[in-house]
């Protein structure tokens, strides 16, 4: 390995590293604005100047200078100090002194670095330049006078998000960052440019002037807006979650976050259920917990075991599902289902419903067949990964299902099961030729009547084309619901002879229907006594006979299993609203009233039971190594029929009760439907 000297300390580095990276490896902090590890190198802010020997007798931009063997790098010489002061002074010439009213104030790279590396005062007495504000859409607030032209936003949107909407027009001191004629940025990852912006030029529009960063307390938790389980940090003030920011997790979200996961937080304070309600004479009335639980218990006890059923929702934590499942099994019910989308998963080995390559592992695949899922809508960060590996080259992608703009090129094979039944040679060749082929299937293909047959056909294809071998498992199920894998892992599916979601909702099928945060199905057809346990007054609560207020995902500590099968622990950020309680505790209280007291009094005991019954839940933050399994045995042989695969997530910004309560999501959704109307704003 080549060796360079950083301030006299010998440091080994890998060939191809830049001087900046070598200096960081040696523990030297190099200030920077434009440089970002995950973006291309621009080299235009000049803040990372260092002195290099051998080299010209002037400071060098370390971010764009390849390190060489035997090089001497100096980061603390008088020349470097003076160069940094000079660059800083120039950057501040046109930067306004509005830190006291700037949303970035307190967590601003420019503030921090001018304290660390700048001069103590300004020598600039002339007028500063002013730049008009730009419209960039509902997620990005612009104060372009503050912009220092680092072009991180341009590079992110072009390279990572794949939506080349932002650019820098004009030049020199007139250079401005803007979108084409101020159209909205049409990316589902647009919020990340606000994080990337080293100054306050681009800030979070939904949260503008809502908080100062130093007022916030921070809790590290897990996102539930899609099935990736992105690692987030929820910042709260008092009892309100003010914002959500990504945490770095190379295996899942790298350091990005989708707009939905980020800006859904205003939905946590709107349309909340904060007290129990009971329907009397067709009208809901506020009730006490005792009344509500007694009413539910009376109905559950009166009904026969095969006439009660439970549907678990998409945002449920594993603990509340486990408690509910235990309760209903104890009551003798077989009618339990957690698959609101109706996907026929949950039977056979666990690998049959996991994203087996892992999210990071999908970058290793050299051929990907996407079936019945729009990853850009259902898992934006997975889509960004697919784009990343497509840009790197060496991966061919084909799609069966929706022909959507995925930000990368793919071969379009067909719309639905007909294509799958008579697979074009191109598709089999694609997988056969590849060394590490992968299939990504979503619930768009697995829902409905033909779902089992589709799963079986894909399993057979996977087996035939070497998608699953002893050393590689490329069979991937991409879920869209955060709760799904946990539900399937614990067997929250109908027991032998039990009813599925669709069957439970039929009129006359049940006497008592328990909706555990289930809002994606329409229960109005069922004439059963309906109990809704959840956080928001949404579809499930609509017309319910008893409403039990539960906790949203930021208000309870819970286990979530992401689509890869990675078990992650979400933490409680704030307390549940009003009289609402944590979901598992409500179920536990109910169990005592129906004389089936569950054998756990604390969350720890419940977790111990969960992990004892299903050992996979005990492996927190651990991604299982790929295991080969009999992929051909999945599903059931049958007629594939002629169904068109459409994504179950028709509008990602309105796909769960929290999102539907959020004003920001409504705005994003409107933009999705009618982008022209919004751009003309």
């Amino acid at each position, binding site marked *: 390995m080549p060796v360079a000297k950083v301030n006299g300390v010998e440091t080994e580095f890998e060939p191809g590293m830049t001087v900046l990276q070598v200096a960081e490896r040696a523990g030297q902090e190099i200030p920077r604005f434009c440089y970002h590890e995950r973006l291309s190198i621009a080299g235009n802010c000049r803040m990372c100047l260092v002195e290099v020997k051998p080299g010209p007798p002037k400071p060098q931009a370390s971010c764009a200078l390849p390190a060489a063997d035997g090089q001497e790098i100096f980061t603390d010489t008088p020349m470097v100090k003076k160069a940094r002061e000079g660059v800083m002074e120039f950057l501040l010439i046109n930067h306004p002194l509005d830190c006291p009213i700037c949303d970035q104030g307190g967590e601003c790279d420019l503030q921090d670095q001018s304290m660390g590396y700048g001069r103590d005062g300004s020598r600039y007495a002339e007028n500063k330049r002013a730049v008009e504000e730009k419209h960039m859409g509902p997620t990005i607030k612009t104060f372009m006078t503050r912009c220092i032209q680092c072009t991180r936003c341009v590079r992110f949107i072009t390279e990572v998000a794949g939506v080349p*909407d932002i650019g820098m027009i004009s030049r*020199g001191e007139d250079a401005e960052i803007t979108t084409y004629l101020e159209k909205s940025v049409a990316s589902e990852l647009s919020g990340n440019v606000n994080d990337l912006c080293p100054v306050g030029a681009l800030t979070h529009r939904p949260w503008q002037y809502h908080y100062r960063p130093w007022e916030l307390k921070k809790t590290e938790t897990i996102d539930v807006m899609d099935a990736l389980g992105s690692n987030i940090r929820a910042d709260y003030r008092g009892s309100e979650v003010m914002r959500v920011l990504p945490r770095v997790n190379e295996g899942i979200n790298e350091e990005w976050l989708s707009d939905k996961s980020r800006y859904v937080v205003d939905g946590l304070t709107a349309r909340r259920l904060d007290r129990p309600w009971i329907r009397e004479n067709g009208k809901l009335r506020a009730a006490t917990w005792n009344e509500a639980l007694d009413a539910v218990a009376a109905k559950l006890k009166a009904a026969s075991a095969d006439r009660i059923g439970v549907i678990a929702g998409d945002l449920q934590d594993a603990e509340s599902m486990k408690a509910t499942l235990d309760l209903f099994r104890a009551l003798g019910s077989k009618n339990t289902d957690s698959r609101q989308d109706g996907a026929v998963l949950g039977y056979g080995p666990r690998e049959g419903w996991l994203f087996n390559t892992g999210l990071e592992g999908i970058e290793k695949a050299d051929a990907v067949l996407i079936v019945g899922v729009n990853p850009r809508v259902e898992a934006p960060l997975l889509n960004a990964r697919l784009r990343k590996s497509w840009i790197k080259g060496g991966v061919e992608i084909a799609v069966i299902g929706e022909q959507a703009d995925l930000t990368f090129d793919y071969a379009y094979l067909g719309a639905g099961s007909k294509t799958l039944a008579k697979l074009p040679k191109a598709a089999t060749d694609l997988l056969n030729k590849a060394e590490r082929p992968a299939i990504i299937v979503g619930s768009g293909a697995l829902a409905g009547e033909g779902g089992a047959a589709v799963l079986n056909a894909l399993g057979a294809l996977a087996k035939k084309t070497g998608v699953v071998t002893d050393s590689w498992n490329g069979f991937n199920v991409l879920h869209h619901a955060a709760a799904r894998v946990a539900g399937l892992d614990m067997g929250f599916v109908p027991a032998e002879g039990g009813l599925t979601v669709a069957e439970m909702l039929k009129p006359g099928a049940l006497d008592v229907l328990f909706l555990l945060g289930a809002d994606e199905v329409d229960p109005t057809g069922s004439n059963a006594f309906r109990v809704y346990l959840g956080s928001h007054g949404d579809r499930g609560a609509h017309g319910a006979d008893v409403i039990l207020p539960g906790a949203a995902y930021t208000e309870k500590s819970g286990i979530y299993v992401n689509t890869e099968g990675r078990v992650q622990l979400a933490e409680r950020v704030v307390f549940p609203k009003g009289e609402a309680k944590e979901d598992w505790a409500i179920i536990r209280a109910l169990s005592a009233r129906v004389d089936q007291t569950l054998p756990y009094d604390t969350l720890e005991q419940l977790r111990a039971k969960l992990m004892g019954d299903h050992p996979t839940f005990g492996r927190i933050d651990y991604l299982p190594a790929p295991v080969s399994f009999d992929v051909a045995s999945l599903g059931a042989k049958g007629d594939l029929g002629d169904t068109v695969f459409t994504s179950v997530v028709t509008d990602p910004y309105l796909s769960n009760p929290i999102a539907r309560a959020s004003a920001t999501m409504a705005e994003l959704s409107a933009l999705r439907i009618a982008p022209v109307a919004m751009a003309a704003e």
Partner: protein
Amino acid sequence: MSVRRLAKEQPASFAFSKATMEKAEWWIKKYPESRRQSAVIPILWLVQKQEGWVSEPAIRAIAELLDMAFIRVLEVATFYTMFMLEPVGKTALIQVCGTTPCMLRGANELMKVCKEKIGPKDHLSADGRFTWQEVECLGACSNAPMAQINDYYYEDLTPETMAQIIDDFAAGKSPKPGSYAGRHTSAPTGGAKTLLDPKLYDGSAAKPIKKLPNSDPAPVEKAPA
């Protein structure tokens, strides 16, 4: 240079003429298929030649032709001041050099003439036939002061010749480009001052060349023992 923005009033549409398209295809073919966008500057030039300026529909048309994002073409068009983002005079676009050598030799007087005859800087004249601009150095300092009018340089100008040229354009004539001081390109005014010996030109001073300089074979390096 000030902030460059697209004109407020834009045409409804833009179409490449047949001749422009042919030339554009020629430029695109110079680059590999995956690098089509390399032709963006020549094609912006062609569009400007066709229309006189670069309109917003034209920017979109170029982006579609070259398979680029709209903003990428806008970036290029706003970066280079040679691309006119507003309509300019159909008869003459007069670009007076205002950089130091021309300024010292009287560019300000030329601009005064332009202002009187045409109107304010950077704006279409009342009749829509003329536009004049002040530009940075056009690289003809030895013929200062000078102006570029449409595609040609008009050099060694005086307020009088400038006025005459504008009048000629207005009258539909095409004034002759080049120096207006009666000299050939940038040769000395009033004829040559050096290299006057006729012997230099009749061949009598020429000597046969025996050896070209630096034509010795390179010395062979001895291999180390």
